[in-house]
Structure formats: C-alpha cells, structure tokens
C-alpha cells in the first residue's frame, strides 16, 4: 500500500477462525470464536483488503507464478523476490471480531548490507497503524522487508 492510502479492514470471526487454523492454533474451540481476540500476527491479514496488494493475482494483469511456463512474466523475474526480515507488533488493545479498522502506512528507514549468502541486501521498513472508527490507535506493525541480489544460498 502507498503512503496516504487508507484501507478499511473489517475484522470477521470467520476470517480469524481460518487464520487460527492456518497457524495451527486450536486453543479456542470452534464454538467460541465469535468473541475471541485475533492472534497477534493477524493484523498482516489486512493484505486481503488492500486493493493493490502486489502478492495477489488481479484480472487482466500478468502474474509471476507458474502456468504454461515457470513464470507468467516474460523473461526471468526481476529479482529473487523480497523476503521478510523482521516483524514487530504493538497492541493498545486486542483486535476482535466486529472491529472495523482503518489502516495507514508510513515509510520507515531503508539501508543496505552485503551478505555472503545472498549478495547485496536492500532493507526497507514500513510502519502500519490500525485505528478504530474514533481514530484511536489499536495496533502498530513495523515490518522490514529485504530484497536480495540473488536467491539465498542454502549451503
């Protein structure tokens, strides 16, 4: 998402239920999910509500995953793809079903580093704020993404 863009994130019990299952969290019985707080990493699922999220296929646009060819984008993809380097969440209060959050993103720092396993690394920080309809802060997310010069060496 870009700066100054606002995303409305309606928090639904079913979304939280499926999210819990996907991280293997069965601490809340399926019959008690209506009021249960979302797991602390749930805020990133705002991606579902970002109309321009770059890691979701969109009608009429090339997609870099495989189909007839290993990638749907002509030639070799521009980079080995960004990887997630760090993620931090801070909560003023828990996120619960029924919340309707307004999410904004501010740019953070950027820096470079050399790595033996992946070449030049470009780090980019992004800070997202999640606010309730009254404008009160609910959660802050700080993420650091790293773009590698080449795929990370597995040896």
């Amino acid at each position, binding site marked *: 998402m870009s700066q100054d863009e606002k995303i409305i994130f309606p928090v639904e019990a079913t979304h939280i239920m499926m999210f819990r299952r996907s991280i293997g969290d069965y*601490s809340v019985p399926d019959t008690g999910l209506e009021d*249960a707080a979302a797991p602390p*990493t749930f805020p990133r699922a705002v991606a579902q509500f970002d109309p321009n999220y770059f890691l979701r296929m969109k009608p009429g646009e090339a997609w870099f*995953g495989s189909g007839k060819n290993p990638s749907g984008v002509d030639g070799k993809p521009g980079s080995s793809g960004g990887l997630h380097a*760090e993620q931090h969440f801070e909560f003023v209060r828990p996120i*619960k079903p029924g919340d309707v959050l307004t999410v904004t993103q501010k740019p953070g720092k950027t820096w470079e580093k050399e790595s033996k396993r992946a070449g030049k690394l470009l780090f980019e920080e992004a800070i997202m704020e999640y606010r309730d309809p009254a404008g009160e802060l609910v959660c802050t997310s700080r993420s650091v993404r790293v773009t590698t010069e080449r795929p990370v060496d597995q040896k």
Partner: protein
Amino acid sequence: MRLKANEISVGDTYEDKLVEDLKRTQLVMYSGTSGDYNPLHTDDVYCREAAGYPGVFAHGMLTMGMAGRVITDRFGAENVKKFGVRFTNQVWPGDDLNGKAVVEAVREEAGETLVDLTVTATNQKGDVVVSGYATARVDR
C-alpha cells in the same frame, strides 16, 4: 490454561512442538488466510525454474504465527501487548519446529502486571528460524 502472576518467575521456560513434518498444504492454508499469495510459498515449479530456490518455503509470518502460540496458549491472544521477531533462517516443507519462550521479567506498569519474554523457534537441525520477544498482560 492461562498462567497467573503468582505462577510466573524469571527464568521460567515454556516449550512447545509447533509443527512436525510441515506440509505444503499448511503453506497453502496460510496463503489463503493471510492474503500473501507469493508463489515462493505455494508454487514449486516457479521456485525451482524461475526463482532459483529448491522448492517452496514457508512464509516468515506463518513461522511467526506458529511461534506466537507459545505465548497465546499461556497468556491469551487478548493479553499480548508486544510481539516481534527477526527471521533468521528459512523454513521448508518437512521441517519440525519447536517454540521456546523464556521469562525475562515480571513487572508492574500502569496498574497491570506484565511479563516480558524472549521467543525463539528452532528447526530439527537446531537452527534458530525466528528470534524475538513478547510482552503479555497477566492476571493477578
């Protein structure tokens, strides 16, 4: 079972098996719920033939989400005040992951009892895959 303040001491260690033999299907499940459909996590052909990886690997956020269970299972998701990690190694299908949290402090702040913990997840080779911290509110 939720822990109460009088059951927590500095140095207490909580350990859980987060996943055994991580399945590609779980990566697909996480893509579906998080909205992160990066083919690096679901598309072996793309990984091998276009991106230069041996195959799909887990979303960092899936590993972080699994590691968070060590905290939320004991203190409740509604009580987490802070949770942060660095992703230090990739996680692959077939991996076994263990989560560990160690109590670093139990303190009072603004009328609440808080517990500070370090959080790590480690694979079957002993490599740390995420390393971080959490702070949770505790019932007295």
